[in-house]
């Protein structure tokens, strides 16, 4: 995951960054929103306070429809920084940072307002030497993505090139479309204005340390890759569990559901990183190529596959973390007859030489007992068990667990002999926790923003991946709403449990079980 370009600066040799961030203007659309205050501005502040810091002439322009002043926006930003930034708040550093922050009121459909914005950005170029470099960050509701991109184009604010003297990049938040057709349409709209290499689709899971560590662990160690196949791995489980409900996002969630909200992006991304073959290099295109191959190998589920291998559930009232949790259908913005799934479990087959015969089980849901995301790779027992008569076969098999949140880390389970005169076996865990480094890793958004500024798209998803993932999800949605729906109904589960009983059956019928997390 090197930067794409290295500068001809001999003083850089041996310093931490192969390439520094060039001066630029980060334009955040949706600047008055929650994401901007909780994630984006704190991430930019932490980067500015870090060593090495961002250049001083990195300017942030917040854009939204509210009639705010720059002072109001700075106050909003400061509150966000105080509460959410990884780096401790410093009044002196904030003062320097705040000088880079300004606000522009823009109606997203108003072309003239974009022309005024363009003139403002040009004035900033002249004042701060930002050299025409732009990052447009779309942190708005998705329905504005196309119109904002179109107006950026109409106002001549986008240089459609990736190799010119200045750069112009578009960062897009999920959800990226709501099915394959809408994603393709959105891609088409964006591609009218931006080249594909200028578009950075964010999946913040890819900015997490453990997710990046998947590549290091698999391809930098000699002990895992030789056994990373169906020959030695019994199955893989990927869990992304949330203990919260839909909060105040009921309206959005009704349209999305767990399948679109989590499986299409985070879970398929995790799965492709676990399953892909070694890329030719760490270059973004080489890694993407391998990920796309996995998506191809999964293919599209038939209606029969959906009936047999997908479980969908919806939470009913219960108790989570000793607090009462209401029924999903009683949540604000949710229909009382809602058929939206808040839980999905599925079994996937990857049709490749490496993985044939090794299923991948995925589960995600809301109102589950814990907030935990984990990839568990379960190995096969030895073909011939020397310790069969000593209970060795009853022990759980070797397991490699990659915990993404909370407590990011890696755990390996293996059998040992209990101390004593007799031969007794026990499974033990060897744990590695990122917490043991006693340091706070950068937030996912810091990493991703920095990469976007550097022009490194390795940790972003590309058009082909997005559309293929939607194709996979669409087939399931289509089956649910078509003939297979009756055979694959939405099943309720009690809030605070690990999903419907049917999800247990999905894996238990194969003689396996979900991990207790």
């Amino acid at each position, binding site marked *: 995951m090197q930067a794409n370009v290295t*500068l*001809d*600066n*001999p*003083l*850089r*040799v*041996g*310093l*931490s960054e192969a*390439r*520094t961030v*060039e*001066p630029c203007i980060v334009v955040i659309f949706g600047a008055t929103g929650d994401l901007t205050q909780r994630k984006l501005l704190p991430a930019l502040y932490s980067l500015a*306070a870090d*060593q*090495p*810091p961002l*250049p*001083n*002439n990195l300017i942030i322009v917040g854009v939204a429809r509210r009639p705010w002043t720059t002072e109001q926006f700075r106050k909003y930003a400061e509150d966000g920084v105080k509460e959410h930034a990884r780096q*401790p*708040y*410093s*009044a*002196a*550093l904030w003062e*320097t940072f705040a000088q880079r922050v300004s606000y522009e009121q823009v109606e997203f459909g108003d072309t003239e307002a974009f022309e005024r914005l363009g003139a403002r950005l040009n004035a900033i170029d002249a004042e701060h*030497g930002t*050299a025409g470099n732009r990052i447009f960050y779309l942190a708005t509701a998705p329905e504005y993505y196309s119109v904002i991109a179109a107006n950026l184009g109409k106002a001549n604010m986008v240089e459609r090139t990736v190799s010119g*003297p200045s750069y112009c990049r578009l960062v897009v938040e999920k959800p990226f479309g709501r099915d394959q057709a809408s994603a393709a349409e959105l891609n088409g709209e964006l591609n009218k204005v931006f080249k594909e290499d200028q578009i950075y689709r964010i999946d913040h899971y890819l900015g997490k340390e453990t997710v990046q560590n998947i590549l290091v662990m698999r391809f930098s160690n000699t002990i895992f890759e030789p056994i990373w196949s169906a020959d030695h791995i019994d199955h893989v489980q990927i869990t992304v569990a949330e203990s919260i409900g839909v909060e105040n996002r009921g309206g959005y969630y009704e349209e999305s559901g767990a399948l679109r909200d989590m499986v299409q992006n985070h879970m398929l991304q995790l799965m492709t990183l676990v399953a892909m073959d070694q890329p030719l290099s760490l270059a973004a295109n080489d890694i993407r190529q391998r990920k796309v191959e996995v998506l191809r190998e999964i293919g599209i589920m038939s209606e029969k596959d959906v009936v047999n291998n997908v479980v969908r559930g919806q939470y009913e009232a219960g108790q989570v973390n000793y607090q009462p949790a209401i029924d999903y259908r009683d949540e604000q913005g949710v229909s009382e007859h809602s058929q939206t799934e808040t839980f999905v479990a599925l079994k996937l087959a990857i049709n490749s030489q490496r993985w044939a015969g090794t299923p991948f089980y995925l589960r995600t849901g809301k109102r589950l007992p814990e907030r935990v995301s984990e990839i568990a790779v379960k190995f096969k027992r030895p073909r011939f068990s020397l310790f069969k008569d000593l209970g060795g076969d009853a022990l759980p098999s070797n397991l490699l667990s990659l915990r993404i949140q909370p*407590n990011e*880390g890696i755990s390996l389970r293996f059998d040992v002999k209990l101390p004593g005169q007799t031969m007794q076996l026990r499974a033990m865990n060897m*744990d*590695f*926790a990122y*917490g*043991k*480094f*006693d*340091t706070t890793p950068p937030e996912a958004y810091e990493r991703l923003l920095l990469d976007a500024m550097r022009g490194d798209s390795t940790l972003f998803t590309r058009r082909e991946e997005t559309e293929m993932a939607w194709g996979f999800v669409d087939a399931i949605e289509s089956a649910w709403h078509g003939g297979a729906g009756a055979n694959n109904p939405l099943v309720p589960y009690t809030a605070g449990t690990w999903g419907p009983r049917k999800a247990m059956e999905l894996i238990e019928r194969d003689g396996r079980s979900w991990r207790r997390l």
Partner: protein
Amino acid sequence: MLDATMVPSTAQETVPLTKIKSTLMTIWQRLNEARRADGKKELTRSSVMTLVAFAPSAKETAWLHDAIIGLTGQHPSRAIILADGMSGDLATVEIRAHNLDGTGAVGSEIITLPVPEGNRRNLAALVTPLLLTDMPIFVWWSGGLPTRDDTLFSLLEVGDYSIFDSADFDNPSEDLVRLADLMVKRRQRQVTHAAFNDFNWTRIKPWRELTAQCFDPEGRGVFLRSLDRVNIEYAVESGEDACPFQAYLFAGWLASRLGWQQKSTRQRANGRLVSEWTAPRTGQTVIVDIAPRTVEKTSDWRASSSVTLQRMQMDDTAGPVTHDQLSEDSAVSLGAVMRVNLTARMGELTATFDIARDGTSQQATTLAHIGKADPESRHSALDSYGEAALLHQQLTVFNYDHVYEDAVLAARAMVSGQDHGGSGK
């Protein structure tokens, strides 16, 4: 305020040298039995290295001990402190634990060994039985560099990595030459294979970073090739000397990275050193002027270590140390770089890049003046490193740092007039 004594520990036990390993084993067992009885997770006995620290005095012994404790969370290890001048033949052993309430509690072992006067020649033999199998060995050297005929020299050869602080050098010019000599001989495989890690090199990292940033933007590289003057200032107290090693290293770094060849050096009064270099290709003469600057609020390097320990052991009660607190609390250490000013001339066009510490704070302002364009300014934090944090940094370096070694060789050329033969281009 947190300090080293608040890191949980077993009591120190005094044992004969022959019983060190068995005593440690017993302590581990006892500790984990007690934790099991309390329903707590067992401590993991995990080590990533052996750290050997030589303390030339009782005061240094106590100080090194505290600094090592501050590292247990990030570098679980076996640490062996050699207490020079301590009499007797009993060692003290203890286990320090980290993250007791979190996931994965780990413990580190600390062994303090007496080195009675006259017993220095046996240091390597004293340490070798206690080295962990197949783990990297760091030797932390406190004080000036030993000479090759010094009996202490054998200890350097025990380690894979030698860590020292050139701020401790009593005679910077002589020690610099000696250090460079060691590096050359190491490269020729005549002496220790150990890599050299210097605290001062890490201390000037923010200055190197800020300087490099001046030349990152497109089109700025040309100014690097046209530099004709570099001024470096370092902190001294009124009427006092200070070790200018940081300034020497910084100058050496610039010279080696830019491929300058040394022409002459004039040592002027009051710690000032002016040298002339020739830039490659252009043949341009570059003047490097190193001068002391008197500051009112100075401290010994070690005065800041408690702040750093606190910073590394942040907990819920203390909260993180803010940049503001660091600015208010810290004085500038003697010898610290205060300002770097680089001037480049290309015909009529002059460009200056000025990086200056803001008063005695841990912040700096960078000003770039290029021709008649409006100046660009930048305000940045200078990371404040206490020794525990510095040690932590050195313990993450698992390779020869050729950029550092080239800087030392160029700095030696500057103070001695010898050709540095560095590899920087």
